[in-house]
């Protein structure tokens, strides 16, 4: 009897420290899948960066460093050669080789994969030896390594043995709820929508700098509940913190707020091509937004500083172009936003023949971007100052994209975060004339079209020289600014909350990297 009790006591004591140091964090949505190729979304890729690894990874400042590849170099202008790290094992113990890279490439480019677009420029992948692999591109691609940091490598043997060689989108396979990466943490319990538990991977190739023994992720949808959970100590970290709670939390001795600028630019777009307005009493009237002067007037009438100061409480940064200053290819020369100038805006409207203003419909999401609805509301007030009568319709994001795709707007809000962290990305998706064949302008809902920019894009994509490339990017930004094709407003802030005893690193892509966490 006594032996049983003491055994129990020992078991209890042994169990104690493990649960005591469980690090708990909460986000707004659950990563939908544990499959790194099935869903191209920030919650999934962000979470899986702790479990899987790519050839390269980004450091705390978003700079690229070696991960599963130690170094890499361009092969002339035909592609890139990667030298792989030796002695790396997957979490199931099997070794990592070039075959896994080729396998992962093939898997990621299947039609069922959601990340195939990363490899649009790749013609072929060749294994040179067990630890060397080459990606051949159809045209020179200077930023290729930058674009594939989230391309995560899976173990060929494990994936095939578990019948998961094809990413599952509308069904489930083994890789949906199980993971086998080379990363610092392994998934030990996965309960979709409830919690996902990870523990350190003992045989990780890199030196662990964290002190986590077990970490648990829970989605908490209601922002107020998440703040409450952080304040009461039920979780150690939350992402995001609502902008309005930043000041309060910063003054609380038990918690702290981390703030940085995100990659996402919030902008207004226009119905550039439609012949008539679609909304309000002026529906059916000729579309004033075809005139760049009208679009420029809107640009001058929106007081971005006031939005940032009040609605965003200083947690955002005004921006003049479609990418944030942290992105590669940002145009330093063109960093000034058009001044907030109502007289100029009215003058432009008058010049375009709309001295008395007009009325139109503005579409906005109400659960997609930080304070999206409030910002749109503020814009309605600001545009009223120059005689524009705006009817705002804010809707959940589940309906929003459909409305935009159907062209149901006169003006709309859009946020864009370039997946490649490069200024070329928004040009390709938002600015070039839509062309489904060439996969161009797929998010250019308003149909903005400019021949010069269309011609600049291929040049930008293949220019290897950084200075020349920047000049080309600058040209395109200049044209877009002069044409006022979009009204870029501000870069969203990253706002994380953590308990005072937690040290962590906030990366600009909003990925929470567990291996940089220390609990004191």
């Amino acid at each position, binding site marked *: 009897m006594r032996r049983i009790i003491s055994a129990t006591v020992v078991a209890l004591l042994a169990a104690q420290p493990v649960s005591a140091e469980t690090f708990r964090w909460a986000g707004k949505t659950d990563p939908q899948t544990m499959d790194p190729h099935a869903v191209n979304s920030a919650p999934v890729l962000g979470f899986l960066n702790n479990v899987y690894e790519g050839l390269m990874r980004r450091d705390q400042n978003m700079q690229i460093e070696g991960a599963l590849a130690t170094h890499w170099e361009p092969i002339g202008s035909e592609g890139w050669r990667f030298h792989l790290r030796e002695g790396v094992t997957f979490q199931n113990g099997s070794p990592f080789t070039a075959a896994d890279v080729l396998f992962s490439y093939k898997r990621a480019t299947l039609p069922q994969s959601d990340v195939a677009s990363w490899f649009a420029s790749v013609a072929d992948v060749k294994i040179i030896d067990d630890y060397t692999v080459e990606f051949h591109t159809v045209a020179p691609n200077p930023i290729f390594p930058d674009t594939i940091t989230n391309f995560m490598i899976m173990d060929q043997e494990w994936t095939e043995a578990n019948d998961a060689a094809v990413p599952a989108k509308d069904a489930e396979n083994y890789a949906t709820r199980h993971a086998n990466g080379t990363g610092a943490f392994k998934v030990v319990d996965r309960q979709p929508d409830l919690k996902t538990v990870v523990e350190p991977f003992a045989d990780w190739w890199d030196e662990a700098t964290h002190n986590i023994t077990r970490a648990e992720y829970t989605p908490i949808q209601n922002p*107020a509940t998440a703040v409450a959970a952080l304040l009461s100590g039920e979780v150690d970290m939350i992402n995001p913190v609502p902008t309005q709670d930043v000041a309060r939390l910063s003054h609380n001795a038990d918690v702290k707020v981390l703030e940085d600028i995100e990659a996402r630019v919030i902008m207004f777009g226009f119905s550039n091509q439609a012949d008539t307005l679609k909304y309000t009493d002026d529906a059916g009237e000729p579309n004033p937004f075809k005139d760049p002067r009208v679009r420029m007037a809107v640009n001058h009438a929106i007081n971005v500083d006031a939005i940032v100061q009040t609605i965003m409480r200083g947690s955002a940064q005004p921006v003049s172009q479609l990418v944030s200053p942290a992105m590669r290819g940002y145009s330093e020369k063109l960093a000034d936003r058009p001044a907030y100038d109502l007289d100029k805006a009215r003058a432009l409207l008058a010049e375009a023949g709309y001295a008395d203003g007009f009325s139109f419909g503005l579409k906005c999401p109400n659960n997609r971007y930080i304070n999206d609805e409030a910002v749109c*509301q503020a814009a309605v*007030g600001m545009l009223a100052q120059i005689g524009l009568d705006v009817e705002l319709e804010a809707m959940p994001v589940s309906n929003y994209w459909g409305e935009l795709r159907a062209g149901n707007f006169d003006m709309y809000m859009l946020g864009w975060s370039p997946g490649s962290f490069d200024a070329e990305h928004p040009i390709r998706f938002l600015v070039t004339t839509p062309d489904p064949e060439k996969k161009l302008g797929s998010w250019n809902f308003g149909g903005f079209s400019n021949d010069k920019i269309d011609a600049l894009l291929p040049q930008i994509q293949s220019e290897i020289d950084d200075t020349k490339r920047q000049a080309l990017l600058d040209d395109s930004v200049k044209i877009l600014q002069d044409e006022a094709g979009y009204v870029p407003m501000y870069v969203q802030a990253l706002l994380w909350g953590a308990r005072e005893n937690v040290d962590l690193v906030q990366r600009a892509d909003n990925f929470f990297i567990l291996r940089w966490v220390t609990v004191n």
Partner: protein
Amino acid sequence: MTHSHNDTDTTPSRLSRAWHSDLAWKFRHSPIAMLSMSVTVLLVLSAIFAPLIAPHNPFDPGSLNLMNGFTPPLTPNAFTTDTFILGTDDQGRDIFSTILYGMRISLFVGFAAVSLGMIIGITLGLISGYFGGIVDAVIMRIADIQLTFPSILVAMLIFGVAKGFTPPQYRDEMAIWVLIIAIGLSDWVQFARVVRGATLVEKHKEYVQAARLIGRSATAIIFSHILRNVMSPVLVIATISLALAIIAEATLSFLGVGAPPTQPSLGTLIRIGQGFLFSGEWWILFFPAATLLMLALAVNLMGDWLRDALNPKLK
């Protein structure tokens, strides 16, 4: 059972006069009734005359200054030095004015939705309970279907369908009607079930049998006899329903289907305000919530009293 139902042989005008003077007497002797009545009347009047009372027009976006945002009550704004009696919200809207205008929308939605639910519910409940059989079965199965759909879902359905059919320029006005129909539709079942239940019991009572024997038509019996006698449970529900309809609007707003943010109702204001609970801008939540609480409490208390006062058996 000996029920005296000799109301029928008095003329309606005398009956109503007596009823009303009786009610007035009871009213004068109930402090709760008088207080809640005055509060309700005050709130309803201030909602009706909002454009005359409110210092600002919060529904006119051109008149707003974003820099006035988050001004605390009775404190001059740091940038614009404007002062607002109950402070401003995130858009720089005067809370006091916004509450008055918002209450108009809430009250309108509430009254309209409950009326809709009541008319449908009582009619179907009476028919169902009185006639029974296949009519009853059909109506009650429709009620089952209705109950299956949470009001949020009904609202979304109607929203979606209405969006498909409304010309774009009327979408703003549409939101309010969608709310009324959605809330009204999710309300009627309660009325119908209770009226049906009461009718089932009432129709076997002697006075109905007697009326039937002397050859009165079904409609006459239903409306003149049964309806009056099932009003007590209907009032209990109608009371709660009015307050509830106003609250349901707030809930729908929380789930993303509510009055447009540029023309907020009381519920939308609370939904917006709850985001500021932890941030220290208590006034954005507190004043609209307190107004809603006051309104709902007054209506509920008045309903309570009215029910007791109207109930002939509680004399």
